[in-house]
């Protein structure tokens, strides 16, 4: 199995799906000749041509709105928002149209499309290039929100997203794009959308996160486990919406303690929703209050100070220990 970065793994998913199904096409700003600003679509333009790898005008609503039309007419568009910070311009098309066509037409018209966007801080980017707005998209019924954390699950989830009959917002943790490599199998591999992944089983505490936060989460868990011999169960949500309530509640019912880690700002984030699920389904099993480790309720600071915002292993470790000791 070749070792790949997440960028290469996503590229492989696009390449293989385009080769498999000629209804699949890619569109966005600079995705063609340039191969995307992160080179995610590198090589596709040469291989599949400009009709299937479409360099569009600079207009996010236009990209998503035309993608909706393509999907209604039988294509499987994969639209790219260059950065999630620019994606708000397409929000009305997503919320008002992509998300609703199935329900408002009782299944007569559907919009199978994927909108990919790099999100998150930690790459010393300019302003408007570092946000984590998954909760905004998760608040739209009819849309699925998927966030991979490794090259292998990015590939397997993107294949599933492209084959999914519903609109999928696919948020790529750009901090993890080239941070590490992982074996990615040559053959087809899919992960089911809507299922969280238990990365490691444990009995003392459940640690829940997703996306770029999975790396510091694993580091912190390893640290606590090594120093204290605590058995920590780690859950990678992978699908943010619709959420896998079952995996969360099964784990917390077993461990009785939980810490949720998110990069996004604190108020009304996905961590709040995870805690609400625990409240609904596992409250009487808790031995300690559920802790959140999150970004702060500020816009992500410019990159010179971004490390003051992003949750790191130190904060996560302390939250785990305080929850264990409660």
């Amino acid at each position: 199995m070749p070792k790949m970065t997440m960028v290469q793994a996503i590229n492989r998913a696009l390449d293989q799906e385009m080769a498999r199904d000629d209804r699949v096409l890619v569109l966005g700003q600079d995705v063609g000749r340039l191969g995307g600003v992160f080179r995610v679509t590198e090589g596709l333009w040469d291989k599949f041509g400009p009709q299937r790898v479409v360099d569009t005008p600079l207009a996010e609503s236009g990209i998503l709105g035309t993608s909706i039309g393509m999907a209604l007419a039988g294509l499987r568009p994969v639209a790219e928002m260059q950065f999630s910070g620019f994606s708000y311009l397409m929000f009305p098309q997503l919320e008002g149209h992509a998300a609703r066509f199935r329900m408002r037409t009782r299944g007569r018209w559907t919009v199978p499309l994927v909108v990919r966007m790099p999100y998150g801080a930690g790459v010393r980017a300019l302003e408007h290039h570092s946000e984590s707005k998954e909760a905004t998209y998760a608040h739209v019924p009819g849309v699925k929100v998927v966030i991979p954390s490794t090259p292998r699950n990015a590939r397997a989830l993107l294949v599933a997203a492209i084959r999914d009959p519903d609109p999928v917002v696919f948020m790529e943790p750009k901090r993890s794009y080239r941070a590490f490599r992982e074996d990615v199998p040559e053959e087809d591999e899919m992960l089911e959308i809507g299922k969280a992944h238990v990365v490691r089983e444990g009995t003392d505490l459940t640690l829940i996160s997703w996306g770029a936060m999975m790396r510091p989460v694993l580091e912190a868990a390893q640290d606590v486990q090594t120093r204290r011999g605590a058995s920590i169960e780690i859950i990678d949500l992978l699908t943010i919406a619709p959420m896998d309530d079952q995996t969360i509640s099964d784990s917390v019912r077993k461990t009785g303690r939980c810490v949720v880690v998110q990069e996004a700002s604190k108020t009304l984030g996905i961590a709040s929703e995870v805690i609400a699920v625990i409240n609904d389904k596992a409250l009487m099993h808790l031995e300690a209050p559920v802790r959140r480790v999150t970004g702060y309720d500020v816009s992500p600071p410019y990159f010179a100070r971004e490390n003051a915002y992003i949750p790191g292993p130190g904060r996560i470790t302390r939250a785990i220990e305080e929850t264990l000791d409660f």
Partner: protein
Amino acid sequence: MPCDGNASCTDNGRTAVCPDPADLSFRIATLRVLDEQGRVQPTAEPDVSEAELVRLYRAMTLAREADQRMLKLQRQGRLGTFPLCTGQEAAACGSAFALRPDDWYAGGYRDLGARLLRGEKLETSLLYWAGYEEGNVSPEAGRTLPTSAIVAAQTLHAVGIAYAMEYHGERAAVLTSLGDGGTSEGDFHEAMNFASVWQAPVIFLCVNNQWAISMPRSGQTRSRTIAQKAIAYDMPGVLVDGNDVLAVYQATREALDRARAGGGPTLIEAVTYRLMMHTTADDPGRYQSESELQEWWRRDPLPRFRTYLEDKGFWNADRQASLDEEIKAEIDAAVQALESREGLAPDAQFEHVYDTRHARLEDQRAEFLANLARESHHA
């Protein structure tokens, strides 16, 4: 023939809605087939059979009569808030009449006549305005998108569909319609731009009824015409008399032929007038002048087209009487079908959110049904 830039074609005297093309520093094609008295310009007359002309007249008449009946139903609490289409039948019907079944239609929300011509059942339209999603389910209308209540959003869908038509190698085109207010939306300009860059087979029909609720056309744009917005996107822009159904038809047909032959998009501005309120919740007396309204009633597209048909020997009072009877029966039947319809299952809102059911939504459905059972038990 130019749309005459006469005084009654102005908007409270502020900006000419329909300026004399001779006054413009650029060229915009203009088209009129019937004058205000319904007399035909023989050189501009399209070649359409008697049966087809009668079909077109019937659709316009049905749209008018249904609109007026719907107003009564709404006032009686039997229908929800809806936007009236009276006065705009020539623009909606003339354009849709030019479509072939393999063409697509992506309209807005004031285009009943176009939907009926596409094959939608009147009962389906009524269902939509009665508050049921089933009113968006119209397989009879084929490649017709459901009503778009978000202004101008549908223009982008049209461009994407047109891209897909080219991608599939189909020689079909897409007609999308919007109002004068819609031309202020970013989506309209993005759609015009994408269509131009892609040379997509799309016809943008701006039904300029001169009002966006209370905002007159002059407050939307300083452009002398809406058609001229095509110039910036390097596509043909055509100005037509929107109350002249044959001019609207002819302009749309030419644009469709050009699009199907690979000639790219066209913007058509059909100048008409909203003769009724924006929706049943609106009160135009607060902003519209009575004299202007009367002036436009004088240009009503229906008697104008009827005069043409009579002059051709295709129509007379007897035929009108039997059409009126037939249409009344059709509307009665649609209202009857609407009101005798079996209700949906109470938990229908939990269907069709996603392709497959999801545990979280199924929990919510169970909670809803349990509450329902409890409430009906107490009732």
